[in-house]
């Protein structure tokens, strides 16, 4: 029981300490300032947003996909990740505009 508390406490502390790193960092060379990034974020592509909300939960975005490959990928993920029909259409436009 003691060990349980210690491990749980450690986990919480770790998550909190990691979260503390999540402060805005200085922009890397070539990056726009934070304000510009924020304004861009407000106009985020709905397909990109759906991609991040659904696909990005388990894996990184694909390197490059042709429109013909995207259809197979999306049908696969529609079943596997239980995407809605709207998710599928928006992500399709995002990955293969």
């Amino acid at each position: 029981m003691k060990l349980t508390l210690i491990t749980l406490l450690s986990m919480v502390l770790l998550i909190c300490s990691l979260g503390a790193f999540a402060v805005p960092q200085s922009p890397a060379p070539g990056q726009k300032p934070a304000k510009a990034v924020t304004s861009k974020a407000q106009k985020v592509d709905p397909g990109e947003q759906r991609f991040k909300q659904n696909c990005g939960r388990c894996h990184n975005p694909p390197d490059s996909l042709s429109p013909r490959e995207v259809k197979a990928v999306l049908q696969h993920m529609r079943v596997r990740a239980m995407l809605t029909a709207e998710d599928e259409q928006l992500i399709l436009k995002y990955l293969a505009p």
Partner: protein
Amino acid sequence: MPVVCEMSHVCERGTPTLAGLAKPIDHISTEEDYEMKRAGLALIGMLLAGSAACAQSDVPILSGALAFLGANNGGSPTYQPIIAPVLVAPLGDHFVVESRADVQGFIFRENGNTGPYNGIFAASLDYLQLDYIANPHLTVTVGRFLTPFNMYNERLSAVWITNLQQAPIIFTIGTRTSASSNGAMVRGVAIDHPNWTLTYTAYVSALTTTENLQAGRAAGGRAGLFLPHQGFEVGASYQRFLQSGDFNVSGMYLVWEPPQIPLDVRAEYAHSPGGQGYWLEGAYRLASSRDTTTWLSRVQAIARVQQYFKGNPTPEDLLPSADVNQFDVGLNYYLTHNIRLNGSYGRQYSSAGNANIWSFQITYRFLFPAWPGGHQ
């Protein structure tokens, strides 16, 4: 085969496969084997014929990963080269055939930590399924599919996705036999609201003892509530295992991925007559957002705690015979988009003996069209 059983607790993500091979076959039936193989061949034939017919519009893709895993569990070194190919073939707008195999070697020392190295080869079919996307709320699946219990098996067990190479201790609860089911499944999004979605899955599986295609007789389901704007999901699973005396298995899972910070928190709880337990994992990319543009943002720190409480496990449960507490810490580094390095250390506390668990893995993820010209 007993050596496989002995090794199954140290065989990282390959546990279900090797364990499946080691499982005693109680009801060997030549006719059943024949029927299963014939059904498999028919499905593959249908896939090829259908894919060729749709070749002009839908290109099948070949995806998956190559990996090499080295581990040391309590002083016993093991090495596993792994190939996990995934084939996806859309057949028009409503049908898709998808399949994943798992081919791996398992190299170990004859007496655990002494003696010459031995190797065994294991191949299994994780899934080969035909999906019919009936409407936005219903998909019907037949064939062999990953057992949808909680979320680890379906979403995180792939070698290129899992953060820590050792499967959770409670992984075999709800996925007993081979982590795959042979039968039928319905799934989909029951309610699609802009702020939340309710998903469901229900399935039945038949007992199959054919080598590499094992499955248990079971029925079950899962429901999940997803809040996309908060990146939060919670769900519950239930399974009735309809053999070995019939018993109930239940579980819950939780995922939280706040959009503002690159933190992933995942947890599962599972209960069966053989035992119960939970795991809680946090993974954090060393960046202020989820992009991977800087080298530091490609580093991911991971920590996991888990506890297992013994019930009345049988050998088929593949659960520890004593209570276990364990923590793991690890690092992932994405060398390029498709290559990932993992390293982890874990410490296991049990009345059966404490152990240090080290692992290292390199994984190459691939995806290309199944025939030439598809990438254009």
